[in-house]
């Protein structure tokens, strides 16, 4: 091996090393683990709580819990995966009156700021888009870690009429409450420790 070859190999190794080194400031995105993750919602029909859930959703979460302000959360839910478990209601939900699944197949959330709120709690503010309507919301999130996986959970309330969910005669909130409670539990792997 000539000294020139040795030099070239050393240079190549150094370059490769530089490329492979992670960018220090950017934490790696956490991976959503579908098993154990759930998004549920509760509507009130004449005072009767009726539970439903979404079975298909995805999230891009980049968050170092020690520096939450640098993090971002973007979330997407397949509106067509909404189920009450009642054949009658499940046949209604995709219709234009409700989630209008053909025109608006996804509901999304994009964070604009994440703030620490003490003891594993965070306030995630951002834009929620459902059925083409965009609203600013703030979602309280509780983060818990066990081993390599983290669990983000929380609940918040949205006004269905702000998103035109339930049109025409269904805008009557004495029949169907305006408030819809949304609950989530997301199992994440690869998030930096708390």
């Amino acid at each position: 091996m000539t000294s020139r070859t040795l030099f070239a190999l050393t240079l190549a190794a150094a370059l490769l090393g530089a490329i492979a080194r992670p960018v220090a400031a950017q934490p790696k995105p956490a991976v959503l683990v579908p098993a154990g993750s759930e998004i549920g919602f509760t509507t009130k029909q004449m005072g009767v709580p009726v539970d439903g859930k979404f079975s298909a959703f995805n999230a891009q979460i980049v968050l170092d819990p020690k520096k939450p302000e640098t993090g971002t959360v973007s979330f997407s839910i397949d509106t067509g995966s909404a189920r009450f478990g009642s054949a009658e209601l499940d046949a209604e939900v995709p219709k234009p009156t409700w989630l209008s699944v053909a025109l608006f197949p996804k509901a999304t959330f994009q964070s604009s700021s994440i703030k620490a709120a003490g003891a594993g709690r965070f306030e995630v503010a951002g834009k929620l888009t459902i059925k083409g309507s965009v609203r600013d919301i703030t979602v309280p999130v509780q983060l818990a870690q066990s081993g390599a996986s983290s669990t983000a959970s929380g609940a918040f309330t949205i006004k269905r009429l702000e998103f035109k969910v339930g049109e025409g005669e269904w805008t009557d909130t004495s029949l169907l409450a305006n408030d819809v409670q949304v609950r989530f539990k997301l199992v994440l792997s690869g998030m930096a420790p708390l």
Partner: protein
Amino acid sequence: MPRPSTAHYTPVAIAFHWLLALMIVGSLSLGLYMSDLPFSPTRLKYYNWHKWAGVTILALSALRLLWRLTHRPPADLPMPAWQQRAAQGAHLALYALFFVVPLAGWAYSSAAGFPIVWLGVLPLPDLVPVDRALSESLKPLHRWMAYGLGAVVVLHIAGALKHHFIDRDGLLRRMLPARS
């Protein structure tokens, strides 16, 4: 011709009878009508009214049964033994169905994932856990028991009218408020 009876049921028993008669016939009719309606606010309203009426009937029937067990009704009028047995059987079936029909409906609603909130205000406990398969078997139970109740109610009314118009034995008057 037998002497017309002058004995009356107690005013409380009479009030229970007519109030529940009205509620039960109303509930049966509403149940029959609403189940064919398309998905709409009207259907949602009727279903909830039907459930509120059903649990009210259940509660009043429990009080009525207590009253019945602690107060002696007027003595039987003279009639053939088979008619007496038929009347007793019909009353027994009525009382049983006063409980079976609403309980089956309540359980059906619970199993289907729709808890009952009485008058939209008072949440009632689920009778059975949410279970779609169970709800599919409770639905026909509620329906057929309700048809059964409707049939016995028709028999009961037919018997009372027969006593009133054919036997003219004053039996029906015992369930009307006494004239002072």
